[in-house]
Every structure is written in structure tokens, then in C-alpha cells.
């Protein structure tokens, strides 16, 4: 892994999101709105990996991910790892997990669902399947899979 990391400069403080599903890195930047945050960001795509064939890596300087961001990340790439870097060293390794109930991060695709029509309401989805991601709206029952998730 250290070889791969050398391809871009190590960061002093911030977050390294490692083991991202290959090709998903760009989507993660977009969904988490990281590119607009003003900090320095590196995206590495299709990096050779020991665990899997390829992976994407994102390095974000001077910033740690919030819980809400980690939840979105888990939905986008359940096997990703989050490393918090302080003073060039890995200070914390976080294994991310998809919560059993996903609240306030995913939009229900059913326009007639009450969660899209009641002012001030939040969305809640039940996790049905972890591996090939499938979640279900607790209100209208609509099921969605990985490719159809729309984030709020």
C-alpha cells in the first residue's frame, strides 16, 4: 500500500478514503460535495490492490468526514475504509458500516410517497441486503438498489 500512496504526496492532516470500489471515486466526490469544499483533494483511480484487483482512493486534506458523510460513503462503497491522518501518520482507522436504518440521506424515488409530500418530514430506509445493496422506504415500501440511489 505504501507504494501506491507515494504516487501522490502524503497528506499531513486529513482523511484518506481507501478501498473504494473502482470507478466509484468520482461519484463519491460528487455526492459528498468534496470538490466544492475548497480543500486540496486527490483522487486516484484504478490503483492496484492486494485485496481486490483495483480500487479508487480519495485523499482529503485538513478535513475529517462527518457521520452523515460516512453514511453516504457506506452506501456508495460498503467496503471502503476511512483513515484519519494526523501529522502524516494514520491516527485512526474506521471501518464503515451501513446502518440498519438509513435516515435523512437518501431520497425516495416515489413522487407519491408521503416523505416527498409532507413538509418537514425526513426519509427513512430499512437495509434489506448488505452485499448487493438493497434498501426499502419505511413509508411507501419502495425498494431501491445500488444503481438507483439518489442522495438528498
Amino acid at each position: 500500500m505504501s507504494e501506491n500512496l507515494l504516487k501522490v504526496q502524503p497528506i499531513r492532516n486529513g482523511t484518506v478514503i481507501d478501498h473504494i470500489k473502482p470507478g466509484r471515486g468520482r461519484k463519491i466526490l460528487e455526492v459528498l460535495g468534496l470538490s466544492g469544499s475548497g480543500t486540496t483533494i486527490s483522487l486516484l483511480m484504478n490503483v492496484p490492490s492486494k485485496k481486490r484487483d483495483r480500487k479508487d482512493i480519495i485523499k482529503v486534506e485538513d478535513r475529517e468526514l462527518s457521520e452523515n458523510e460516512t453514511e453516504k460513503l457506506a452506501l456508495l462503497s460498503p467496503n471502503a475504509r476511512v483513515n484519519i491522518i494526523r501529522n502524516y501518520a494514520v491516527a485512526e482507522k474506521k471501518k464503515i458500516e451501513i446502518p440498519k436504518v438509513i435516515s435523512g440521506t437518501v431520497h425516495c424515488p416515489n413522487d407519491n410517497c408521503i416523505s416527498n409530500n409532507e413538509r418537514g418530514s425526513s426519509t427513512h430506509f430499512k437495509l434489506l441486503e448488505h452485499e448487493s445493496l438493497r434498501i426499502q422506504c419505511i413509508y411507501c415500501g419502495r425498494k431501491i438498489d445500488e444503481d438507483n440511489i439518489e442522495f438528498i
Partner: protein
Amino acid sequence: MKHVVSIEDLDNKRIMGILKRAKQLVPVAEGKKKSKALDGKILAACFFEPSTRTRLSFESAMQRLGGTCIGFADPSATSHLKGETLLDAIRMVAGYSDVIVLRHPHEGSAKLASEVSEVPVINGGDGAGQHPTQTLLDLFTIKEEIGKLEGLNVGMLGDLRYGRTVHSLSQALDRFKAKFYFISPKSLRMPTHVTDELQNDWSTHETLDEVLGKLDVLYVTRIQKERFPDIEDYKKVAGAYRINAEILQKAKSKMRILHPLPRVDEISTDVDETKHAAYFRQAFNGVPVRMALLEQLMGKKK
């Protein structure tokens, strides 16, 4: 608190309990016997879209048990139009009543209401979603007409795509090991989100003729004009799925026809006189079934 949002909230044991009690309550529903089981209790019927049959049968059920009803039949009479949220309306009504029956055009509204209501919420139909008391009365009708719920051959005919009654009923009958025959035009087939969940055998057909002789129950739904952009297409399809007394000669003599009503002309009136017609008794059954449920939610524990 026990809300009744979806038929999935009720396990088979509880369903059978409600059906058994409903049967005992038939004389009360008919007005031949008096009950004061829910004396002093108030039912609030909150109908954010009109549904005369559901509302009247709930109100009849409540009053037959000695309770009273408040509510509205149409949201134009409420603060809904002033922009009041559903949750604010529910919090308010919960303070005025012992049980709320909610009818609403949006899917999931009963579930949302149940999160804030301090009294039980019964889903009286939420958009294209659930309508559990309709499913209960369908099950009750089948049990009373056929004598059992287990292992029946059930045909469903008409608009299976948009008809929510057939979705919930097939979910429920699947738990009682039914074998399903889904009969519809191609464009109105049972959706895969329903068939994917079925544990028992099912098959799709385009004509009733090929399966009629096998059926114990035939559940008919109305094919709506709005589903067809071309009126000629509608006429052709609707005509092909019309039932009359002559067609039914091929049916088992004990086969029963159910329909959630109102019907237009999918069942010819000459069927009404045959032994197969169960739909008017089915409509009446809404009262004892809703009585049994209301009693279970609010009555004294025995």
C-alpha cells in the same frame, strides 16, 4: 400501542382471531343484537380523499358497538388547504378521539401518522399503498364463503397492475398457501414487486377460460378507462374480461366471485342471481370485520 398500517402488521394468529370475532359480531352488525362494547369511545375518521364505502362502514361499525364518530369526509373542509401538515392534523385529532381512521392520497401517510399519534391509527387506504381492513374483509368473505383459507386456488382478474386490493390480498393469501392464477391483459399484469415475494405457485394468463374450472375463488377488479390512452383499446380489453352467467357454467359449483365494488360492467348483473356472486355479502362484511378490529384496539381486555 397497536397501529394497523399494513396487513403485514398482523400475523396469521391475529388475523384468525379477528375473523373469528367478526363472525360472532355479525348479528350486531345486522342490528339484531345490541352491543355497548365501545360505549363512550370516539372514532375520528380523517378522510383526506373521499371514500364513501370505507368511511360509512367504519362509522357503522363504531356505532353498532355503542361508540360515536367525528371527522371529515373531504379535506376541503379542513385546515389542510391552509397548509397544515398531516402530522399537525393527526396530533390534534389524537387529542379528540380514541382511534383514528386515516384515508390519504399519499403512500406511507398512515405509517407517518402512527409515529406521532397517541391513539391507534388504522390505515383506511394510503394512495396506491395499503388498505389492511379491505384485505381483512376479503379474507373473512373467502373464509365464510368457502369454509377455509388454507390452500385455495385463487384467480385474480382485471387490472392487476394498479389494483392495490389484489396486491395486499395476494400477499395475505400467500401466507395461507394459496395457488394463484393472475388473469389480465399484458399491460395490466401483476407487478414483479408482488410476484417476487410470493412463496407459493402462481401463473399468468390472458383468458379466464383456460383456468376457470380450477378456481375456488375469483377476485375481479375494475379495469379503469384512465389506464388507456386510446378509448378503443379500453373497450376491446374491457370487453374481453367481462363476466356473465353463461361463462360461469364452466366454474366449480362452489366457486365464489368477489369484487371490491363499485363495479361498472365487468360483472354482468345476471351473475348477481347465481350462487357464485359473493360481492354484496363481501361489502356487508366490511362492518363486522371493522367491528372486530375496533373492539380489539379499544375494548376491555378479556
